[in-house]
């Protein structure tokens, strides 16, 4: 019996030749990640357990990105705990404000996470790195503390659901639309505890940035991880970033899947997820005319360069609607610089948008664009739960950067085709 890519990574990291779904294993981690919200709790647990030295200072990443640059005194104190621990333990992958980016954009960009790795992060969107052909998943602070002490984490080897995307995507249909369609189809617990393996000829044409978006939202279907087999696009992305060896794993032809779900992408139109669950997915046309107050383009889901290029293409030559706030948040400093070089920042500012320094900020209702009672936002983020971006009676509509940009111009949820004649 063959193994899936997820099983193979678990087998390698637990020193076994074969692992099967349901098996409980103790596995070695290549990278353990925490941020300014989850890190301080993990550090406290690490110290309480008598921790003196982390298992490997090169295998831990501490990123102050959620409420940083610090939004208030309390969040400054949290960042300080992270910073002092990083100094004390001489953590290699600590990124200070000014070099910091949103963790799930920064780590792949800097070549810290690589194909074949086993990565855990005290952040649910750690599943993003599956786009590189790595196993990566979110854990809590105590699991993270355990990993900082021992270099290990326990897992139950998951069954895998295979998602095959075939055909040619329609205009303005992106990785975000494919994953929203998938979550809409299987529901927010449709892949609970399961590995989601994304494959099919339609994915070959997706950029790395779009693949990261898809893997990022595996958690929104309850998935343990979202993973893709590396191909030339992956290896090209990794080539000049990797500073250590890595291993490419592929699923065996006779690997066993719990279920195989097939999507013809030619039938998929640009999507929006309505409040208050990411599974409430409809075609943009079915949500048109919903008036909005704010648009967020950014986050670990859609704050990468391709996302910014796409949004700028839609918005170029237009003005943001007079009563809408458009807040653009590049996910890393590199993306920020590239946007300036390519003239994208100029396009946004000319249109009347705010362009912020990297931060998770508004995505989780932290700061930099909180919603008042009754307000509605279109966001390229990942969650639209009650109160996620502010007041419990505010609403978040999830979309691609193209739909978000078109909506900012129209002041209501809009298809990109309403704003521009060009195509992607």
């Amino acid at each position, binding site marked *: 019996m063959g193994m899936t890519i997820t099983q193979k990574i678990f087998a390698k990291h637990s020193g076994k030749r074969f692992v099967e779904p349901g098996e409980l294993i103790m596995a070695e981690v290549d990278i353990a990640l925490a941020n300014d*919200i*989850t890190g301080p709790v993990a550090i406290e647990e690490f110290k309480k357990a008598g921790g003196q030295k982390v298992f490997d200072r090169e295998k831990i990443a501490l990123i102050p990105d959620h409420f940083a640059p610090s939004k208030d005194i309390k969040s400054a104190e949290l960042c300080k705990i992270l910073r002092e621990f990083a100094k004390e333990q001489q953590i290699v992958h600590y990124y200070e404000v000014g070099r910091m980016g949103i963790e799930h954009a920064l780590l792949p960009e800097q070549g810290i996470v690589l194909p074949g790795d086993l990565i855990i992060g005290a952040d649910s969107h750690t599943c993003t790195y599956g786009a590189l052909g790595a196993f990566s998943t*979110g854990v809590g602070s*105590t699991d993270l503390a355990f990993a900082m002490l021992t270099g290990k984490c326990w897992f139950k080897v998951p069954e895998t659901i295979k998602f095959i995307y075939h055909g040619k995507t329609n205009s303005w249909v992106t990785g975000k639309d494919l994953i929203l369609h998938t979550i809409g189809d299987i529901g927010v*617990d449709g892949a609970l*505890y399961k590995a989601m393996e994304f494959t099919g000829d339609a994915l070959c044409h997706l950029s790395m940035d779009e693949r990261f978006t898809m893997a990022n939202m595996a958690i929104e279907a309850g998935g343990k991880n979202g993973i893709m087999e590396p191909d030339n696009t992956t290896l090209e992305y990794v080539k000049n970033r990797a500073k250590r060896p890595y291993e490419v794993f592929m699923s065996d032809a006779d690997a066993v899947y719990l279920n195989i779900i097939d999507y013809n992408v030619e039938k998929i139109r640009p999507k929006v997820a309505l409040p208050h669950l990411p599974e409430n997915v409809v075609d943009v046309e079915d949500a048109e005319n919903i008036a909005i107050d704010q648009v967020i383009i950014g986050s670990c889901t859609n704050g990468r360069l391709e996302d910014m290029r796409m949004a700028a293409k839609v918005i170029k030559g237009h003005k943001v609607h007079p009563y809408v706030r458009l807040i653009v948040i590049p996910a890393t400093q590199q993306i920020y610089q590239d946007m300036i070089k390519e003239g994208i920042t100029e396009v946004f500012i000319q249109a009347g948008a705010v362009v912020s320094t990297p931060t998770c900020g508004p995505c989780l209702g*932290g700061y930099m664009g909180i919603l008042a009672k009754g307000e509605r936002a279109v966001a390229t983020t990942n969650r639209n739960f*009650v109160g996620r971006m502010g007041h419990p009676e505010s609403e978040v509509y999830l979309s691609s950067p193209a739909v978000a940009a078109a909506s900012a111009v129209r002041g209501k949820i809009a298809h990109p085709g309403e704003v521009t004649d060009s195509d992607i």
Partner: protein
Amino acid sequence: MIFKGNAWVFKDNIDTDVIIPARYLTTTDPKELASHCMEDLDPDFSVKVKEGDIIVAGNNFGCGSSREHAPLAIKSSGISCVVASSFARIFYRNSINIGLSILECEDCIKNIKTGDVLEINTDMGIISNVTTGETFKARPFPEFIKNIINAGGLLNYAQEVGGNA
């Protein structure tokens, strides 16, 4: 462990953003977190809940963010145990790791109402609805998980087994 308390019934897909909104994640103090527990669904929850009370919920309880502050807030609010049809993966791990009692049982949500008096034996996995006289059986935990629970959380367990974790 034996718990007895009033039931608080919640629906499917209770996410960690409503269990403890991110706007309160600037603190790690369990008491402060507890004072905002479930606030966006029921602003008075933290005032009304009594020591020993029990949450009963549907599928996918604790979905969303990995914040350990969520089970911490629930535990510190006085809730003794959460019984759900199913739990989101990270919340399940976090609860076991910090020593919040959780049980998986699909029949409870259909047969228990807010205010019913429940008695739970976590070792046996038995949930009794004292108000109606009905009894339900929770799904048993794997041996490894039981060991973590009995040790009082992951890090205690790690210390017990030493380098063999």
